[in-house]
């Protein structure tokens, strides 16, 4: 059984950057957010992980003050949207998932526009350098690549030197090199002491950037903790993934030496183990005794994707 994350000592932090309790939001027929509690401390990078439609964007937009919740309360830096909106806004940097910038606007014009909304912040030149767009400063938005556009969007979010940076799926649809470029900007912001709330459906992104993650599905948080805590909650650091040609008994598999847990997805079987060098030979001989073979067999280090799979029987990217 995974360890409860609510006894995490950091929960005692009484001055969190973001705090929400009992968030609920329904759109006509569908419940987008069921009951979400989050406590994100200052200087932390928190990853909200889940498939498309899990309720990540709705949760974030409630926190950003763009969508009113049906129920629940939100505190940002100790302030409330209904009373302190004017004081909260300048301290947030927000990047929205599908929002476009004006097409026939140059990079520097877009940044100057967003910079003009904030009393304090870096200069336009500093922002352009921060996202490595010096050579594109006179280029129209419509002529930028996807990765450049995303970096520009992050630069606009950084224009007011925010305390909290919200990034909604910042690397979806980008090539690996562009993703790394965005990651570096986020890491630089973290090093400066900023708080980040990041949504993503990439487990590698969450594992690299996030100090803690919460996994969401169907509008609820399934589990939260540090990436290594969640991976350890699986009960084994390695995953043996195989497809046998004959059915095997769960009880037999659980008795194999070095095996911690077992679960399936369709015809695929997953064993977790801290000692794959003991579990694997035992699995091979068990299968031979039953007169079967491996239709497929792989092993890998356990990831957040395996945590999601163990909890829901689906993979993150199944959507």
């Amino acid at each position, binding site marked *: 059984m995974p360890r409860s994350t609510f006894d995490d000592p950091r929960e005692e932090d009484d001055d969190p950057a973001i705090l929400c309790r009992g968030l609920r939001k329904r759109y006509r027929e569908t419940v987008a957010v069921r009951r979400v509690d989050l406590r994100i401390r200052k200087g932390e990078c928190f990853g909200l992980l889940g498939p498309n439609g899990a309720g990540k964007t709705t949760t974030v937009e409630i926190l950003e003050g763009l969508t009113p919740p049906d129920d629940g309360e939100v505190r940002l830096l100790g302030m409330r949207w209904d009373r302190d909106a004017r004081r909260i*806004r300048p301290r947030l940097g927000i990047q929205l998932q599908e*929002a*476009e910038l*004006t097409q*026939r606007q140059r990079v520097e014009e877009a940044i*100057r526009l967003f910079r*003009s*909304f*904030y009393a304090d912040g870096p200069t336009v030149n500093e922002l352009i350098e921060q996202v490595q767009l010096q050579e594109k400063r006179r280029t129209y938005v419509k002529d930028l690549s996807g990765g450049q556009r995303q970096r520009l969007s992050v630069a606009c979010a950084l*224009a007011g030197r925010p305390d909290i940076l919200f990034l909604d799926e910042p690397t979806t649809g980008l090539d690996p090199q562009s993703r790394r470029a965005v990651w570096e900007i986020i890491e630089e912001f973290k090093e400066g002491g900023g708080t980040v709330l990041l949504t993503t459906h990439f487990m590698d992104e969450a594992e690299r950037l996030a100090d803690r993650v919460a996994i969401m599905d169907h509008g609820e948080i399934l589990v939260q903790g540090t990436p290594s805590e969640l991976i350890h909650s699986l009960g084994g650091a390695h995953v043996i993934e195989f497809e046998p040609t004959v059915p095997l008994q769960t009880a037999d598999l659980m008795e194999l030496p070095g095996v911690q847990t077992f679960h399936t997805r369709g015809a695929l079987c997953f064993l977790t183990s801290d000692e794959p060098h003991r579990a694997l030979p035992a699995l091979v001989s068990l299968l031979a005794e039953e007169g079967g073979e491996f239709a497929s067999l792989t092993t890998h280090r356990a990831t957040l994707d395996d945590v999601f799979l163990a909890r829901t029987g689906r993979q993150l990217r199944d959507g």
Partner: protein
Amino acid sequence: MGEFVALRELTLTRLRIMFREPEVLFWVFAFPIALALGLGIAFSDPTPSEFRVVVERGSAAEAHVPSLEGHPEIRLEILDGVEAESALRTGDAVILLTDGADEGVVMRYDPTRAESRGARLLVDQLVQTGAGAPRPVTIREVEEGEEGRRYIDWLIPGLIGFNLMSTGLWSVGYFVTQARQNLQLKRLVATPMRRSHFLLAQVLARFAFLIAEIPAMVIFAWLAFGVRIEGSLFTLGVVVLAGAACFTGFGLVACSRTRTTEAVSGIINSIIMPLVVLSGVFFSTARFPDELQPFIQFLPLAALNDALRAVYNDGLPITAVAGDLVILAGWTVLSFFLALRWFRWQ
């Protein structure tokens, strides 16, 4: 940074986009000028009062041909029955002279055509005097100077009014809807930007655009057709600003809740079409029945066109257009009030 920096940047952003869209430049500059050119050429015939009169060959009317021949305002033709008939029916000829039931002459014409009345009187008078009728009173005719009374002189202020309306509606309505559709408005609302600054920037950008838009039309009309502004430029400027403000408000109302550019296009067209017909852009509002007149004079475009013509054609002072300015101001206040009430950012 000061408050005005954001307002300035928002206004500049809007202006840049406007000047970087070739389609916008076409509709704002090229289209009205092309329209003025086409209508100006069509309606500025060098001999505008020449009527085509047809006499049926072999009819009793043929006897009166000498009375009509050679008159500068009449182009006379003698045609066979069928051709003569079709000339009148297709509108080529204004008057057809033919046989009557008893030995007299019959004059046929289409009473709904404006020029019929004048042509009928002229032909009747020429035939009567040619046949020896006396003219007991002598009337000397004096022709007025040509410019200032032509159709093109009347048309140009109407086209300026039309342009103030369509540019106001399209430039504000279409752009804001597009920004909402692309979630640009949502992105802006996620910053500390003051919402009033965004809306004010749309208005300021629209006003700044006037600096290019109105002189282009005025100078074109002067160079191509010799259309002159009789009144003061200051008064004309006041009327133009009042019209621009009013239709910028209409633009904001049109886009206050639209989610797609298709939807806002429909709304804008349904505002423009009736106003163009009813407000005296291409033909005078006097053509509508008397019962409609009180209603028509309160339409924003009718008031604007009336004021523009008073200054442009008649050279009247600002006091003479005060009533029109009050009507425009009323529409402006109402439209901005509704726009601010209804406006949705997401």
